[in-house]
């Protein structure tokens, strides 16, 4: 049972345009949602998070939107840069004693120069 789903395995956008990465979840008990970025042969790097009581969080070029009624979140990157090309993972957590994360399967973003 996949609790966190990223239905698009890949996305290609032109440099300077907006990248929108999507994520759906099934567990209404999730408290926090996070996005990680992963380059080949490196570990994932934390990008941005959002609490379930918020609907938007912004950090520079990165904005995460949360729609709780639809159990959907998205990461917007504006403007997209070639260095943003990586695999992006959506993750969710229940704030319990371990704060373990449930990850989606990732979306590979390619930003074309």
């Amino acid at each position, binding site marked *: 049972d996949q609790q*966190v789903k*990223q239905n698009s395995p890949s996305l290609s956008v032109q440099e300077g345009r907006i990248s929108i990465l999507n994520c759906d979840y099934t567990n209404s008990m999730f*408290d*926090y949602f*996070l996005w*990680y970025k992963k380059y080949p*042969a*490196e*570990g*994932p*790097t*934390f*990008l941005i*998070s959002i*609490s379930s009581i918020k609907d938007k969080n912004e950090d520079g070029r990165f904005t995460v939107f949360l729609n709780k009624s639809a159990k959907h979140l998205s990461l917007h990157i504006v403007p997209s840069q070639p260095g943003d090309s990586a695999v992006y*993972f959506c*993750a969710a*957590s229940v*704030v319990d*004693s*371990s*704060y*373990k*994360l*449930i*990850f*989606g*399967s*990732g979306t590979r973003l390619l930003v074309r120069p």
Partner: protein
Amino acid sequence: GAGVSQSPSNKVTEKGKDVELRCDPISGHTALYWYRQSLGQGLEFLIYFQGNSAPDKSGLPSDRFSAERTGGSVSTLTIQRTQQEDSAVYLCASSLRPTANYGYTFGSGTRLTVV
């Protein structure tokens, strides 16, 4: 060190052999996690250590998997009698304290291939 260090970076082993994977977390980080990423999949939680508390082993897929964390620092993940389905990238992560909203710092992982 400056980051989470994992060794070896690559390991090829024969089916049925035991393997040990090592993780050196960031100094002072009390929380340590092990995840694995199989081909084309997301990261799968394996085990969590926090200080001297009993670890959360709820993600370990079978009793062939075990992990320990000595002295609240270095952790070793052991897989006994490896199977081909154990092939994956094993990732270790640490954080200063358990946290939901700031993420944790991952190492580069150990790529395990069971032949």
